[in-house]
């Protein structure tokens, strides 16, 4: 058994919590940030297009 095997058997809850739940919640957080960023970017592009159209 290598070091990770021994560690995971000695700390099963930490292994489960950090490896699965914390990681999944981190992925959800990154997805939320990306979705919000995409919305801000899209709104900015539309405003720029609108301003360019008004100048024409």
């Amino acid at each position, binding site marked *: 058994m290598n070091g990770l*095997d021994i560690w995971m058997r000695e700390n*099963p*809850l930490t*292994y489960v*919590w950090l490896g699965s739940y914390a990681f*999944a919640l981190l992925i959800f957080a990154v*997805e939320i940030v990306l979705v*919000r960023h995409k919305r801000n970017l*899209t709104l900015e592009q539309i405003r720029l297009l609108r301003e360019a159209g008004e100048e024409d």
Partner: protein
Amino acid sequence: MAINWFKYSAPSTFYALAGKLIPWFAISAAMMFAVGLYIGFFVAPVDYQQGEFYRIIFIHVPASILSMFLYLVMAGYAALGLIFNTRLSAMMATAIAPTGALFAFISLWTGALWGKPMWGAWWVWDARLTSELILLFLYLGYMALHSSIDDPRRADRASALLAIVGSVNVPIIYFSVKWWNTLHQGSTIKFSGTTMHVAMQQAMFIMLAACWLYAIAVVLARVRSVILERERQTKWVAELPEVRG
């Protein structure tokens, strides 16, 4: 009072409706996650065979179910868009794909973490694991194909075909543990019921509901951006308060 559901198939009305619904789904998801995690870690008993490691089930099973259901929903929307040429259906399919891919990835990741202490291996080329990996590739293929075509309507049609053909993989994932002799255990939730401890069931179903609510909230938020992007030349988008600044 009869509700005219067809009204919400118009991007302009759906955009406003989605904006109102997102906070409700997001807050409910956060509450459900908190309750599900509490029951999963503090109320549900230790498994007599797998010890504490089995607690991965409360995220692994919901993520796996969501990855399969979201694919079917995505393929359904893509088919609707292809057959009836409805704009919103194709936009919904586009918005579902990244969330479905993330759930497929979480399912594979948590499965690997569960597999290591139970089987002694992060990965085996088992029918269930391999078909779930193919599902992840189908999601990625759908997104790659859609973004590789400049014309959105043509991209919708091409990727819809891929989504529809790929949906054959979903029953293969579900029945793989029955059809083949696999290392992966049988289905945790069957149509005939489950033999799990009641607290384990509660934790899993609450986490499943939380994942559903989260997925709905994030897909609605994403589809609002897709609607804005595609309808940017229309008058109703120009008149939106957030566009006028």
